[in-house]
């Protein structure tokens, strides 16, 4: 992996998508897919690099599954091209693509044993019989299903079926593994455990994974990068941290985690800070980075609930910025955290999350208390769309 030297002389590792010399492994170029009048995928371009664990994250109808099915070859793009390892996939049918897919329903062949299911793909490639045996055994080991080789799918539990499906799609060592909601059918506990397993297996086999999911936590936990999709568009591409901390649009900010959004207007715009007037917030908002928009532009400022704090006393340094007042309306005690719903004096409701440092403080903040709400200059993100 490439390295670069920062100004301070410290060497840091360069991720493939930051390295201009790296060639993308999967390139999606201006791909559009229409079903009749309905545009499922709208002019999407993406570059995914070798060894990535890439997530397509979106709600239902966002076009993420259609995009995945175009990669597998089950749908043909209305326009645009898909390149895998430099090869144009336009005229290559699914059964000749160097891509395998793990289906949401697992799609195991009900009339074949686990072993036969996994060997199926190798048989299509006329791999010699003894090699098939070795490779099936290897991959069964990888997913820890060795002793279930002779069983039929209906003799397995949900989690085991999921692993058979994974093994079956891995055994051909595809250039690209597509996973359609791979954990969707598992219950919560099994899902969390399997998330880590999946990441481990990906690291062991070194195959590039593209995964479709609607579960933001799942995407955040597993992915190297995430593409957030909304009604056929890609709203933002970035690492989980980038997407959470620097959402590009209001949609992304609201889709990932929860957020408080304040409408306002830019009063001051300097390279090192902006000042925004917001009636909703009841105070001016100060943010320690500049934005490339003219003065007076209507903008939104997004502040995450855990980046705000509440207190009965005014904060020690009260500059009149990023500090406002409100009344506690609801409290949800979650053990490690508490969620507060505060009605600001402007009438705007905001959500604040506070860790519970102390055990049952003597005078906890409670319903109908008047409180100060404050946050740091780095907490807000200015959004123009």
């Amino acid at each position: 992996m490439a390295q670069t030297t920062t100004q301070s002389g410290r060497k840091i590792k360069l991720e493939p998508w930051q390295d201009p010399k790296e060639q993308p492994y999967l390139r999606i170029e201006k791909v559009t897919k229409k079903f009749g009048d309905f545009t499922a995928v709208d002019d999407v371009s993406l570059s995914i690099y070798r060894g990535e664990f890439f997530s397509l994250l979106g709600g239902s109808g966002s076009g993420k599954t259609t995009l995945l099915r175009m990669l597998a070859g089950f749908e043909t793009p209305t326009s645009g091209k898909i390149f895998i390892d430099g090869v144009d996939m336009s005229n290559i049918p699914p059964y000749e693509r160097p891509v395998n897919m793990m289906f949401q329903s697992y799609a195991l062949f009900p009339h074949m044993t686990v072993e036969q299911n996994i060997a199926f793909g190798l048989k299509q490639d006329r791999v010699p019989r003894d090699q098939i045996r070795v490779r099936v055994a290897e991959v069964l080991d990888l997913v820890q299903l060795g002793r279930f080789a002779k069983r039929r799918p209906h003799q397995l539990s949900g989690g085991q079926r999921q692993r058979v499906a994974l093994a079956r799609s891995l055994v051909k060592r595809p250039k690209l593994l597509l996973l359609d909601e791979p954990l969707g059918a598992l219950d919560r506990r099994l899902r969390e455990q399997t998330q880590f397993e999946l990441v481990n297996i990906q690291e062991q086999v070194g195959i590039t994974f593209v995964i479709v999911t609607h579960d933001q936590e799942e995407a955040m936990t597993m992915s190297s990068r995430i593409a957030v999709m909304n009604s056929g568009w890609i709203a933002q591409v970035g690492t989980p941290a980038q997407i959470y901390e620097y959402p590009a649009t209001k949609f992304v900010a609201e889709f990932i985690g929860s957020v408080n959004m304040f409408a306002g207007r830019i009063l001051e715009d300097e390279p090192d800070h902006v000042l925004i007037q917001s009636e909703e917030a009841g105070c001016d908002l100060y943010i320690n980075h500049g934005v490339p928009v003219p003065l007076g532009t209507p903008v939104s400022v997004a502040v995450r609930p855990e980046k705000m704090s509440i207190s009965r006393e005014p904060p020690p340094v009260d500059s009149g910025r990023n500090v406002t007042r409100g009344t506690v309306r609801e409290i949800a005690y979650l053990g490690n955290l508490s969620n507060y719903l505060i009605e600001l004096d402007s009438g705007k409701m905001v959500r604040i999350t506070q860790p519970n440092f102390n055990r049952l403080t003597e005078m906890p903040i409670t319903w109908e208390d008047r409180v100060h709400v404050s946050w740091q200059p780095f907490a807000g993100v200015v959004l123009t769309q």
Partner: protein
Amino acid sequence: MSQPASSLKTSSSRRLLSRFGLSGRGLVVLVPYVWLLLFFLIPFAIVLKISFAEADIAIPPYTALLDWAEGGMLTVKLNFASFMFLLTDSLYAVAYLNSLKIAFVSTVLCLLLGYPMAYGIAKAPASWRGPLLMLIILPFWTSFLIRVYAWIGILKQEGLLNNFLIWLGVIDTPLNILYTDVSIYIGIVYSYLPFMILPLYATLEKLDDTLLEAAADLGARPVKAFLAVTLPLSMPGIVAGSLLVFIPAVGEFVIPSLLGGPNTLMIGAVLWNEFFSNRDWPVASAVAIALLLFLVVPIMLFQYFQEKQQEAAKQ
């Protein structure tokens, strides 16, 4: 990586097909398509054609429709005589109306008997449903003709039913059932009952029991809950079952010819007689065309529901 060269080879049979502009997929549609066009659709065109011909003593017994007149002019001789005949002789009108009436009444009777049965089977314990359903289908696998014939022995004047009723003392003189409309109703309901029960069962079985519980919880009495929830939700089954009974029953031949009498004229038997006894092919064709016209709407309705059901199953 592991993409073998063999997968890039095109097999020779595929190349052969594609030389004719065909894929294997195209062939899958084309073969049954051509079969149905040739043996199902074109025959109707021929029936239509012959219904406009004139009966003739020849082989085949009708005149040609197209003629090469002198000078090479193609002339078409349309003969409406057969259709006029259908309109003028009241026998046909009576037969058509009687067929529609008998089919309608039989369908209603089938529904009245079939609905509670389908309901009962659908609500039976799960392990009973299979055998109960099997018992509905079982008679269907035995000869239809023989099952209709069985009713002759039962319904005759000196038959088993009359003997039984006289023995019971319910009646003194034997009832006249055989060779009336009643015996035809019995025959049709008996033969077509499975066609009514199966689609009804299919919809009733899918019905969520909690819907009825919810209705009861909201204060609906059982009868009210049935009318407000079960009945509307089983409508697709009612329509499918009714059409599956009604349409073939209109053109039924075997039942009226075995169980019906001279006063129970049905159009299927009329067609049969025109064809086999009178050897009047044009009139038989005209009868068939007129019967089809009666049935076009119900048949299209049936297709519409069939298609909709398949769509729903896909979801």
